[in-house]
């Protein structure tokens, strides 16, 4: 028997291997196309330094992946729905800044806020800002029907500008404890961020695989007209997905703030390229309707491992960037051939 191409990595994993010639369906293999890459990186890492396989190091790698990971999670959902959102890289910075600006004491600290809300409100406010940004993107793409790539690119610039304007370019330290907690807490000896991030990925994967609205996203991304004809509320769902993406970015901002102890003015600056790279080498199609969150996750880990291995290997700083780019390409090529699919 064969299975429906349900996208959740989890359920692909625990399914018995197909009897029919497996190469018949690349869809299943695309999700794992990066596993060999990760394995190779692991071996290299182990060779260059015994420290690589230490728990500290590996946990460190995962922790450093969490913020990027959440952005990728959001972007993956949006890409699967057949859209794009570049502005996530600014949302991760703007959302915390706006939230803190609304709650921080009007004077005393270095960064003067408006003190409109109690400190505990910072977290929900931050998420709300994320949702709002997503909604605005939705408005531009779905109501005004302007090109999503450039619209969100404009948003990227604008929101970053807003961030700089409000924070006056300073990084904001001493944030409320409630706001910083998630980013720096440890649960069972592992950073809370790691648990949360993995949980969200699992959740998302399950939703895409087992919820009707989740499945609908693939339909929308694959052929919006058909989805419409099948009674799926295309625009509404797309809008929701964009908002969710914003919320995830905002949440990434919260983790970032806790993790690095402050909201820096360049928080997330230039990340969006990594986000796309991770998603695509992870098997998410830029044209929509393809890919799984598991794949996206492997994409993130790959990129982070590369940096880690290069640091352990003591690559001369002058050449890290060069290597980084080369490895992205290699990973892309490998994932293209292991998945055996022409990428448009």
């Amino acid at each position, binding site marked *: 028997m064969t299975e429906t191409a349900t996208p959740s990595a989890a359920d692909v994993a625990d399914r018995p291997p197909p009897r029919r010639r497996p190469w018949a369906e690349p869809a299943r293999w695309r999700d794992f196309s990066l596993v060999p890459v990760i394995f190779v990186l692991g071996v290299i890492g182990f060779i260059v330094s015994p420290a690589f396989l230490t728990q500290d*190091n590996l946990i*460190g790698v995962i922790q*450093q992946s969490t913020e990027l990971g959440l952005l990728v999670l959001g972007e993956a959902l949006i890409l699967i729905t057949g859209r794009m959102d570049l502005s996530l890289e600014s949302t991760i910075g703007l959302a915390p800044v706006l939230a803190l600006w609304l709650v921080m004491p009007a004077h005393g600290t*270095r960064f003067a806020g408006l003190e409109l809300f109690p400190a505990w409100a910072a977290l929900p406010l931050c998420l709300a800002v994320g949702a709002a940004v997503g909604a605005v993107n939705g408005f531009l793409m779905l109501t005004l029907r302007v090109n999503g790539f450039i619209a969100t690119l404009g948003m990227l610039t604008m929101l970053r500008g807003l961030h700089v304007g409000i924070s006056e*370019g300073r*990084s904001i330290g001493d944030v409320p404890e409630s706001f910083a907690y998630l980013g*720096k807490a*440890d649960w069972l000896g592992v950073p809370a961020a790691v648990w949360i991030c993995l949980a969200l990925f699992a959740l998302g994967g399950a939703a895409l695989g087992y919820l009707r609205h989740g499945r609908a996203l693939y339909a929308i991304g694959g052929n919006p007209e058909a989805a419409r004809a099948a009674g799926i509320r295309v625009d509404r769902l797309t809008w929701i997905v964009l908002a969710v993406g914003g919320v995830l970015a905002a949440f990434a901002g919260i983790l970032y703030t806790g993790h690095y102890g402050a909201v820096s003015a360049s928080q997330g600056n230039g990340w969006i390229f990594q986000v796309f790279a991770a998603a695509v080498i992870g098997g998410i199609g830029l044209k929509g309707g393809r890919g799984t969150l598991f794949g996206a996750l492997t994409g993130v880990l790959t990129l982070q491992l590369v940096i880690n291995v290069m*640091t352990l290997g003591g690559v001369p700083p002058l050449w890290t960037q060069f290597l980084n780019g080369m490895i992205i390409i290699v990973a892309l090529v490998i994932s293209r051939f292991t998945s055996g699919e022409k990428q448009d």
Partner: protein
Amino acid sequence: GCNRGSDTAGGRIGIDMPRTDTDFWNSYQQYLEKDLDHGGPAALPLSNSQNDIAKVVSNVQALTDQGAKAIVMAPQDTGAITAELQRLAEKKIPVVSVDTRPDEGKVYMVVRADNRAYGEKSCDYLGRKLGGTGRVAELQGDLSSINGRDRSEAFASCMRKKFPKITVHELATDWKGEVASGKLQSLLAQHPDLDGIYMQAGGAFLRPTLALLEQQKRLEPAGSEGHITIISNDGIPDELDAIRAGTIDATLSQPADLYAKYALYYAKAGLDGKTFRPGPTDHGSTIVKIKNGLEDQLPAPLVTKDTVDDKKLWANQPARKK
């Protein structure tokens, strides 16, 4: 944009901000605006070149088109500004270059604290603190930024010459906090015996580094066992707090206030056609001759627990105007 200042007799000054998204340049801008508002020379509205040398040039041209008779700029790329400097020289417009020293092209005055000095002083301090042996992580800046490079090279050569027994791990970070934190974390996993850290920019690296050490339970107060000696550059208020708290040991205070003050001072002087000669100045610095002009090398004092409360440090001065 309302044009500040009253007397436009000698003509106005055009000022370009290299970027506004870092603590340091932000304070610099605020000092500029304060000085301008308090009877400084007449200036056109500030422009912002968002760390792109091409924008510096277009902004400066726009400023001169508007009648700026002197220019204050901080080209983050010392090569690609050459042509523009030549153009300004032809127009007899004096240029004050803040923080960086252009490779070529006439400048009226360079106002900066020598970045190589940062590297050397930091190296000295760490070397002495560690007694000449140990393992040090260097959080570099962006490799394509002149200042970052000067600090790196000076630090490296000094270490090689004076403290050959200290191993230095250079970590390139693009001035990005999360990159620094990530690489430092990897390094700590690899070499738990890390003794010292040199941060080339406190503004970018201080918080992430402290947060990391805290999470790694490696944040011992200065003097206590297992403390990692940290020296930083910039001298923003956060760093002074950290020094007071003993979480870091020292910093080099890059005088944002003096940058602003003397940028305007020399610009005005340029307007009035004054000329300067190499030698010590009235404000505790020395003017040196460089091949394409003069350079006023402002002092970049080393701040330690003993000197941290010095009122003269810009970061200690009463809350800046908002």
